[in-house]
């Protein structure tokens, strides 16, 4: 090899070293001491061992304002590329907080957009790891425009490939909106998301609040509903991303993996888990775990709107999405947050052809001025819209209560359910006995010699007549009344029958879901 070769190779090697050195040993040590991994370590943890391939490692900022040319950073504070997760390709970006605080400038955004474009062309999931101080102020509106380029791609890719955002540090201002457009947001315990940070909040409103109290993982997983998953640290969080992807197809043109697991039928325990007395509560997660393949239930948003449970699971190795009323919280009633939570999940599953199982035990929409004034009409409507619009296989099991509009909203026959099962203890009615008798029996009770006795008589008549699943079955709203011990077999057979379901919507640009 002649010396010209050697010089050229040396130059490349030194540039590679500069890329690998990222923000330098001190900043990397600081990142590690705060319990975080570096951008590249996160990529290694996300992908199958040794499969990560970096793209555009040399892209750098062209900005020369404010002395930016003097502190040129090769790579521009973000690592992008692809690798394999459970052997299937995925693309990702990972912001490097050690390089300029992970701030997003024009070149930084361009790198992310290129990786997103590749994900779209390869029809593969895109994972965005966020750890950034925000827009790079020196680059002015070019950095803002960089965000816009990302939002645009997030939106166009929505429903085509699964998009997952992982927040592992600060994510402030406009940076929040890319995660918000994507399908799932993961946060670590030491990450934060907010549109305006504590300093701005204080200067504008006078309110003093810590960054954790304003936009920490606990707030977003339980109060705002922004985050879907929270993990204590980087490693467990990235493992969670891998786990989630195991349930998903690569794109809307792909199929989910069949992952045979232990398919023990625990349906016989269902009559012990669910009290026949519909006034007694129980944890619906125990019902789910008895029905699905062992250990396959993967709950989403478990701390938000806990009156409804959502998540992925498998039956006979095939991914399904589960929506279940949770009797333990607010009696399983539907309200604004539960409607939003379930509707978005239903639409995700419909985008990616994941069949839906709905477990119904719902007393009503929650009454009250707080709900009405908060817009329960438009929020509740999302649930009806999402179920009606979904063309994937849709199976319902009415376990106990199914009352009024809430019954109709929970994947009823009329809104397109393919198969509706009910247990013999199911109560399917327009309203509860007490309310119904007060209205339809008002005159009879007033005219009676003993109004209290008359009321009791009417209550008993109403209960006998309506507090069962048989009228609904006779009228075809329930396809079959089944025993608890038959449940898994029946549900599995319904999904098997529905595998080739072909239902299409009329041509439209897109519908207008009540947002």
């Amino acid at each position, binding site marked *: 090899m002649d010396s010209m070769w050697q010089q050229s190779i040396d130059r490349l090697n030194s540039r590679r070293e500069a890329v690998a050195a990222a923000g330098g040993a001190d900043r990397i040590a600081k990142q590690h001491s705060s319990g975080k991994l570096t951008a590249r370590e996160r990529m*290694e*943890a996300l*992908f*199958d*061992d040794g499969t990560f391939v970096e793209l555009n490692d040399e892209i750098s900022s062209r900005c020369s304002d404010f002395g930016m040319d003097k502190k040129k950073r090769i790579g521009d504070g973000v690592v992008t590329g692809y690798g394999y997760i*459970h*052997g299937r390709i995925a693309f990702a970006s990972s912001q490097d907080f050690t390089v300029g605080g992970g701030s997003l400038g024009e070149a930084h955004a361009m790198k992310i957009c290129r990786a997103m474009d590749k994900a779209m062309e390869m029809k593969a999931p895109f994972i965005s790891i966020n750890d950034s101080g925000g827009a790079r102020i020196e680059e002015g509106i070019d950095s803002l425009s960089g965000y816009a380029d990302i939002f645009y791609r997030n939106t166009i890719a929505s429903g085509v490939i699964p998009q997952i955002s992982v927040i592992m540090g600060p994510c402030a201002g406009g940076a929040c909106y890319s995660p918000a457009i994507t399908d799932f947001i993961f946060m670590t315990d030491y990450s934060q998301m907010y549109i305006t940070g504590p300093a701005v909040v204080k200067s504008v409103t006078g309110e003093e609040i810590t960054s954790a109290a304003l936009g920490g993982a606990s707030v977003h997983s*339980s109060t705002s509903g922004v985050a879907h998953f929270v993990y204590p640290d*980087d*490693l*467990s969080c*990235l*493992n969670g991303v*891998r*786990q989630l992807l*195991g349930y998903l197809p690569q794109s809307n043109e792909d*199929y989910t*993996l*069949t*992952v*045979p*697991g232990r398919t023990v039928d625990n349906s016989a325990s269902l009559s012990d*888990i669910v009290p026949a007395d*519909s*006034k*007694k*509560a*129980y*944890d619906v*997660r*125990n019902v789910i*775990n008895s029905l699905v393949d*062992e*250990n*396959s*239930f*993967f*709950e989403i948003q478990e701390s938000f709107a*806990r009156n409804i449970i959502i998540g992925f699971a498998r039956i006979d190795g095939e991914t399904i999405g589960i929506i279940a009323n949770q*009797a*333990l*919280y*607010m*009696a*399983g*009633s539907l309200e604004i947050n539960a409607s939003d939570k379930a509707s978005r999940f239903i639409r995700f599953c419909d985008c990616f052809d994941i069949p839906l199982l709905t477990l119904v035990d719902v*007393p*009503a929409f*929650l*009454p*009250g001025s*707080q709900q009405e004034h908060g817009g329960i009409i438009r929020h509740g409507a999302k649930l009806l819209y999402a179920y009606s619009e979904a063309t994937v296989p849709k199976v319902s099991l009415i376990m106990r*209560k199914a*009352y009024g509009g809430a019954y109709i909203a929970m994947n009823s026959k009329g809104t397109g359910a393919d198969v509706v099962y009910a247990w013999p203890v199911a109560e399917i009615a327009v309203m*509860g006995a007490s309310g119904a008798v007060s209205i339809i029996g008002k005159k009879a009770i007033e005219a009676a010699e003993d109004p209290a006795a008359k009321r009791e008589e009417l209550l008993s008549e109403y209960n006998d007549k309506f507090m069962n699943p048989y009228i609904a079955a006779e009228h075809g709203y329930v396809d079959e009344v089944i025993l608890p011990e038959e449940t898994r077999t029946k549900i599995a057979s319904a999904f098997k029958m529905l595998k080739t379901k072909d239902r299409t919507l009329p041509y439209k640009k897109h519908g207008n879901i009540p947002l």
Partner: protein
Amino acid sequence: MSKYRITVEGKTYEMDVELIGANGSVQPVAKAAPVVTAPAAAPAPAASKTAATSTGAVIAPMPGTILKVLKVQGDSVKAGEVVLVLEAMKMENEIVAPADGTISILTLTAGSTVAGGDLLFEVK
């Protein structure tokens, strides 16, 4: 390393699947599966999401009627112990103490009606 049979569009493939742990260690896929919820571990029912404020005040999660009051003011309670039963939304909702302590406020009696957001009791 686990062996899996995977069927894609009717074609069956046999695959060795291993999950690469975050620390680079190899874990079987099943290990990464979510932990199954402990059966019937009686988690704090009904109100705890809205109930546990920093002051130990427990708020009615929804409008309803007090069916039973199991404690009186001044009783000491353990976290998770049922203090009263709120009949609401066709359900007997057990409302529990958010923390260990003494019930400092409890004036409701069976038959009282409450609105969503009303104070039910307070534990100090």
